[in-house]
């Protein structure tokens, strides 16, 4: 699909959508949002870019193979689940929270890292599937 309008819009939308996905990821602990939906939005940003500019351009933009994000995300999620075992001796998956508020981010806890892991896994899975399908078409 080579259209000048789509191409122009997609280059503007890509950073916006990724920013929005990070916003959704961060607000996810108490409000609607979270790692899964944030990951989907980020994946959509790249897929839109791929539609407008072709798969090769998007590949060049991402640089790494999206499948690599899956184990990275899983590893982050596992570490966040095991963090209480290692640091405080509580059972796995206990929420650990940093007491002070951090500007913009708000309170930071192990749940955020878990969500970040989910975020990466979702991006990795979606992009791997879409890239593989559009390759074989």
């Amino acid at each position, binding site marked *: 699909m080579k259209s000048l309008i789509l191409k122009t819009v997609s280059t503007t939308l890509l950073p916006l959508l990724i920013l929005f996905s990070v916003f959704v990821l961060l607000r996810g602990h108490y409000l609607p949002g979270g790692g899964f939906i944030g990951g989907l939005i980020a994946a959509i940003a790249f897929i839109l870019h791929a539609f407008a500019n072709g798969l090769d351009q998007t590949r060049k933009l991402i640089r790494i193979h999206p*499948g690599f994000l*899956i*184990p990275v995300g*899983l*590893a982050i999620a*596992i570490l966040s689940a*095991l963090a*209480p*075992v290692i640091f405080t*001796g*509580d*059972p*796995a*998956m*206990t*929420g650990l929270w940093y007491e002070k508020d951090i500007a913009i981010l708000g309170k930071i806890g192990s749940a955020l890292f878990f969500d970040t892991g989910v975020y990466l896994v979702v991006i990795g899975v979606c992009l791997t599937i879409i890239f593989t399908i559009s390759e074989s078409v």
Partner: protein
Amino acid sequence: MNEHLTIYPIIVHLITAVLLLFFWKKPKIQRYISILGSTVGIVIAGMLFHRVWENGILSIQLGNWEAPFGISMVADTLAVTLIVLTNIVSFALSIYSTENMVSSRIKFGYYAIFHFLIMGLSGAFLTGDLFNLYVWFEVIIISSFVLLTIGGRKIQIEGAVKYFTLNMISSIIFLTGIAMVYGATGSLNMAELSRIIPEIENKGLMQTISLIFFIGFGVKSGVFPLYFWLPASYHTPPAAVSALFAGLLTKVGIYAMLRVFTLIFPLGETNQIILMIIAGLTMFFGGIGALVQKNILRVFSYLIICHIGFMVGGLSIFTQVAIVGAVMYMFHDIIVKATLYMMGGIMFRIFGNTKMEKMGGLMDNYPKLSFLFAIPLFALVGIPPLSGFWPKISLFSASYTANEIAMLVMFIFASLITLIIIAKVWNNVFSQNPESIETKSSFKYFKDFNFAEKAAYVVPVVLLVGVTLYYSFFAEHFQLIATRIGEELMNTEHYYNAVFNINEKTKL
């Protein structure tokens, strides 16, 4: 901290799987990581078993949420023994897969999914929450579906569709049951349910729910009349996958039955009769089915169904001795069924196909291998002192003392028909010489393997046969474990106290 150990068997395989994903394109490294992960798995399972054996039931509340609200993980003797056996089988299969799985299949993530499946099994054994059990079942189904279809041959897809459809339906039925339990009691914690359910006045509803659970687990374990997916799919994937499925997947259904029908819905008279009839029919149709099959792997599939009847039958008698028999049979069955399919893989390499009329003369050509193969086959029949014999004593005597003569007759019938089937297999594959064995040019036969390749096929079988022999000659160890499991299953307060941390010396 003691209780952390409870979830380590899950974590080990999860970490192994993620590590394997990092080495997606490097099959050689994946083989080593998988063997290493399974070794660590055995060590941790052994430590957990030791801890539980010494100190009684261990439990942990995930996320530090108190018992009825959060998810409890409970390691009682039944769960940890199954985890030890699971890890032994997974270790053997990690080695077996190095040669049985071609590199292209490993590049599609075979090993990672394999470890995800083991993780799912460990989780299902350890969980103390009904909904969490459902989640682990889903993990198992999804992983097993990938394992079934990896490679994408037409016959595999055909088997996988049947497998997936029926297992999906059973999951939905199971989920419906969970929803009804939650609607009726407001809790899904198994320990809490064991106290709430007896006090509910609407006995009819509880009866219905328990039967819904039975259907859900029954499909998964392959009882009559919903076993058709099993022989349709188990012979299609490579031998390593079939061995894993045969050894462990159907037993998860039996484990769930043992857990739910002792802890949550102790069997009443009606349910006992229903389970008995189903068990009898399962043994009958499984046995008859195995008798008429021509493909050796399909014979084994029907034997799985036939022997599921022993465990369901043991549960249905519902005395402590019978439960001990069922549990012991389960231990024996996990090891022997996995061995059978691994043997099937070797036979496929020797003869080039799995049809029994095109096999023969194994005894003359491979005497040592034949001797090795004879042990699990005879153990399956239950020739004393091999492992199948010991659980059958418990089952026979339990059904006799409980005055369930029909069940006793069915047990004996199933044992006899197994004997006939094994005699037939022996006759066809081991002794009789075939008229002609065609040789395929593009096929790598067992005799062309070098030493390392042969070892990768035979060593795991030797390992599992070793476990069978240990079971055979030191059956009193397993009897001791099973007796304690029977005691724990029939007296639910041990489980309840462990989950709610009520101080009690659970040591028996």
